[in-house]
């Protein structure tokens, strides 16, 4: 039933987050939220959708939790029963503490990712297992271990305050970023979830510039999802993509977000770079000097090989292939571990007019790449140079 599916999307996180605060029991919280939704699936088609679906689900889930606690005679049962029966109806929003607890740095990164998908996003364990190419029992064990560590080591259920918030937020954003990239590389479910989670985080922390920027970055990258691959599944380079196939409402939304968000960190810089590409009507309309400037800043705060490489590409387009090759010289030491460096050198060399050398470089890059669409694209470039 559609209303139940919508209720799952809208209310799952709040249901689970509140039940965890009241009972301290993660598995009980998930089970009761699941039960409440199952009950809705049974009742709503017959009795009609209640006026306040979220409130209805919360009541059913709380009663279910009470039932379970009354039957299990645990020591702190009375305490938890009391919390469940006396919590004021206008409870605070617990969703942010749920997110911060799932992303606690004392948990392994793979556990943080799995827990965020299961508990915050409400994805079935089987789907998460499939997305990460492990069996369902393996994923179940991973989730169980993570929940046990939260309980045993007493990882607090709260949003960090003051300096601690600034220290912990990048870790939360890194989990979403990993999810999105995993989705971008071929598991669309994860990209959609990452965007949904970024939207939720942006609603809960509307004044944090890096949170808003991360959402904008996701929207911009995701806007190319229907144009990134050709019918063979091969990657289509940005300058050859059908720009009409880009998701323009998503691009507009991202641009609006960036317009009102100050640039304070790496996600804002990446989002501005993505926006320069996304707002160019044709490849030749791309504002490369702006992109080169954003990359200069990004390379200052995150001097990674990949960023230096992209910076060289941007300088190549902004100020000519020789300027690009000069920048590329700073990445010499990584030439052997990143075939992309050779590919970029090949592209820049081709544009200087040295076709012979460019051709040899494209072949060298192809030989260093793994067999697949990337290698095919490099060989195709070599063939074009005659």
């Amino acid at each position: 039933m559609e209303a139940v599916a919508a209720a799952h999307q809208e209310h799952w996180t709040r249901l689970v987050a509140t039940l965890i605060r009241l009972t301290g029991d993660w598995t009980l919280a998930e089970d009761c939220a699941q039960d409440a939704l199952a009950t809705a699936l049974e009742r709503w088609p017959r009795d009609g959708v209640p006026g306040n679906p979220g409130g209805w689900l919360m009541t059913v889930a709380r009663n279910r939790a009470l039932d379970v606690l009354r039957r299990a005679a645990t020591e702190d049962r009375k305490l938890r029963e009391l919390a469940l029966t006396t919590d004021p109806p206008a409870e605070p929003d617990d969703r942010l503490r749920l997110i911060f607890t799932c992303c606690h740095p004392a948990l392994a990164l793979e556990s943080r990712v799995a827990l965020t998908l299961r508990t915050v996003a409400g994805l079935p364990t089987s789907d998460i297992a499939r997305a990460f190419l492990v069996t369902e029992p393996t994923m179940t064990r991973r989730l169980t271990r993570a929940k046990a560590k939260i309980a045993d080591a007493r990882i607090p259920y709260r949003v960090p305050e003051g300096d601690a918030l600034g220290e912990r937020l990048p870790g939360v954003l890194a989990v979403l970023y990993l999810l999105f990239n995993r989705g971008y590389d071929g598991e669309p479910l994860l990209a959609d979830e990452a965007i949904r989670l970024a939207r939720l985080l942006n609603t809960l922390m509307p004044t944090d510039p890096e949170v808003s920027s991360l959402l904008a970055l996701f929207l911009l990258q995701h806007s190319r999802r229907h144009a990134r691959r050709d019918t063979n599944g091969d990657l289509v380079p940005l300058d050859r993509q059908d720009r009409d196939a880009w998701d323009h409402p998503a691009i507009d939304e991202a641009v609006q977000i960036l317009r009102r968000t100050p640039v304070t960190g790496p996600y804002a810089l990446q989002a501005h770079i993505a926006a320069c590409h996304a707002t160019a009507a044709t490849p030749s309309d791309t504002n490369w000097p702006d992109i080169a400037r954003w990359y200069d800043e990004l390379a200052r705060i995150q001097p990674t090989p990949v960023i230096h490489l992209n910076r060289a590409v941007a300088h190549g387009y902004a100020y000519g292939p020789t300027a690009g090759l000069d920048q590329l010289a700073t990445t010499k030491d990584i030439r052997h571990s990143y075939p992309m460096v050779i590919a970029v050198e090949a592209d820049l060399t081709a544009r200087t007019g040295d076709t012979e050398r460019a051709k040899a470089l494209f072949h060298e890059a192809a030989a260093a790449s793994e067999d697949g669409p990337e290698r095919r694209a490099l060989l195709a470039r070599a063939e074009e140079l005659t």
Partner: protein
Amino acid sequence: MKYMMFVCTDTEPETDESRVPDIEVWVAENDAAGRRRDGNVLASPTAATTVRVRGGEVLLTDGPFTETKEVIVGFDILECADLDEAITVAAAHPMAHHGRIELRPYADL
């Protein structure tokens, strides 16, 4: 919540020499706050004796039971509200800068 804090050396050469805290200050502060319930420096692992009972017989081995390069050089018992507080206390210990610290919660069975 009680945590056992194992204070260990580290085989990795990298250390953090910036603003290394003073151990006397660390002990005094955490004792005063009631967070540090006990703790001490341990004698070298060469003074360790490993004890096992097998087949009714007491078997002794000279030395620690694991031959690792990292050595437990001390311990502290912490009483903290939660893991975040314990992490803050551990990160303020000089050996977090020179070595490594393992926080183990009491299982409280």
